[in-house]
């Protein structure tokens, strides 16, 4: 394995609810061209492409092939990943494997979601269709009114079981979910590539938003966003020639477990707030990065938080604090941009969620912090090492990427 560094990032000019001015592939090309412009590379410099977006969300089944020419990939190797919420980071890991293995010198991860042209609820149903169809004949009630296995509330319904369990087991209260959501919307106001921004957000304001499925309020939930992100990775040798600033990949890992609440037929055996994959993937990635204690060695974290309680829950799972401690760090102001453990200065997924990009944006935002290029949302402390976390799939799938300002000693 050889060292790999992030040498460039490309975002669409905006991340908003509806990009009516561009098609899906035109939107993708905006991010691709931004990535090339930022690195000074030409299309012929890219050896391989790894593409990612959520299967079925827009009803486009082969977007990577539709977009081939829009990302200048004709005649080049392309792979597509579709791992759920973690897609962006899975695509990043795919690009990393290409370069680390020597199969390519420069690879581009390309991710997008154009939620405004699809129905995410239909897409989400697609992840449990076989079980649901079988359970329908056994009398399951999909309107959620009665009977065993009654389902109601879409993904907010499923996730609220996790939030409720997290609150019970950590000692945190719903007021802490309000407060972290407010912090991230304030952070988002400083990020030009964020969607929901509110410089005046407070826990009290979030607490006034309607309760959807206790303890999850409207203000705790991510938006549906249109946007695309690319990330360009290069070998150490190439990076030295091309880039002034590089964020080095120190360790990557992913881990899966059972489907928890989505497992209707084989029964549920896991607490949706247990999140063993986050614990395991973090341990493995730290081990690969030569990190013994993330609490002491990681300066900055980006957590995948489609729902606001997840920032706090995952800080505990990935080892950035003890169990039951995250909400205390929040109360002490340590999670803020000027705190000791800054998290999601970008505003997180709870502020911007174009799903294909969301787990990649955790990585690119960590890279920007390391390169000192985050602009108005650059955190106060110096960032030498950062951890990016991705979550999704059927509740129990996590990815981790650890970046640093220096390449790994091989």
């Amino acid at each position: 394995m050889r060292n790999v560094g992030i040498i460039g990032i490309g975002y669409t000019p905006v991340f908003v609810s509806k990009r009516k001015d561009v098609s899906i592939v035109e939107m993708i090309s905006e991010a691709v061209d931004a990535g090339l412009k930022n690195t000074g590379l030409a299309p012929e410099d890219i050896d391989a492409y790894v593409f990612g977006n959520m299967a079925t969300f827009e009803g486009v089944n082969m977007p990577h092939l539709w977009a081939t020419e829009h990302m200048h990939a004709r005649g080049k190797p392309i792979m597509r990943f579709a791992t759920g919420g973690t897609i962006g980071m899975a695509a990043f890991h795919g690009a990393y494997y290409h370069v680390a293995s020597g199969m390519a010198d420069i690879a581009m991860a390309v991710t997008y979601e154009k939620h405004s042209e699809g129905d995410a609820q239909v897409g989400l149903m697609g992840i449990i269709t076989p079980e649901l169809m079988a359970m329908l004949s056994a009398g399951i009630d999909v309107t959620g009114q009665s009977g065993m296995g009654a389902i109601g509330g879409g993904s907010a319904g499923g996730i609220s079981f996790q939030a409720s369990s997290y609150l019970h087991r950590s000692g945190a209260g719903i007021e802490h979910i309000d407060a972290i959501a407010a912090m991230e919307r304030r952070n988002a106001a400083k990020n030009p590539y964020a969607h929901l921004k509110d410089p005046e957000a407070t826990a009290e304001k979030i607490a006034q938003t309607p309760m959807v499925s206790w303890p999850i309020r409207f203000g705790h939930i991510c938006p549906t966003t249109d946007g695309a992100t690319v990330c360009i990775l290069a070998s150490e040798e190439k990076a030295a020639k091309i880039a002034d600033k590089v964020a080095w990949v120190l360790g990557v890992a992913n881990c899966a477990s059972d489907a928890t609440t989505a497992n209707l037929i084989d029964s549920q055996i896991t607490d949706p707030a247990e999140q063993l994959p986050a614990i395991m993937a973090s341990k493995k990635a730290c081990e690969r990065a030569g990190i013994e204690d993330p609490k002491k060695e990681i300066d900055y974290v980006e957590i995948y938080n489609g729902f606001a309680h997840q920032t706090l829950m995952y800080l505990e799972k990935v080892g950035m604090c003890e169990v039951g401690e995250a909400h205390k760090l929040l109360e002490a102001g340590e999670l803020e941009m000027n705190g000791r453990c800054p998290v999601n200065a970008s505003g997180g997924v709870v502020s911007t969620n174009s799903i294909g990009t969301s787990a990649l944006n955790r990585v690119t935002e960590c890279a920007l912090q390391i390169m000192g290029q985050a602009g108005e949302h650059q955190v106060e402390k110096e960032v030498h090492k950062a951890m990016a976390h991705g979550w999704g799939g059927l509740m129990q799938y996590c990815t981790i990427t650890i970046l640093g300002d220096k390449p790994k000693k091989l």
Partner: protein
Amino acid sequence: MEETKVVTGAWELSTFKFNIEGRGLQLMLKHMKDRKLMGIKCHQCGTVYLPGPFYCRKCHIRIDEPAEVSDHGQVMTFTIGYADVRGNPLDEPRIAPIVKLDGCDSWIMGVMQGCAPEDVHVGMRVKVHWAEETTGSLQDMQYFVPE
């Protein structure tokens, strides 16, 4: 709707046959008619599942030993729904607990009645309220009530 088009027609979805061979789900449904909850126990590690898979999720071996599970149990986590799947407000908040039944190691989802939303908590003892007439359907186990 200006931004969407509806294409009328039928989309044939499979019924996705599962290899449950009279065990698992079918075993549970059959006994629900008699107001009994029948799961499957792993003969190696002793884990009891409801509905039972045909393999142990921990030992990865085939299992088929029926094991009766109590219709009393404990709330492991819960939510209170205020909106339906389409986001429309519900007339009454809906309590949805995930319950671990006594004698069972897996958890099941359901709804709860006979309790104010503010009184539900993790660790609460509950029992199954059975339908007046049971037919061998998931609907036989109508809802949970406080013990």
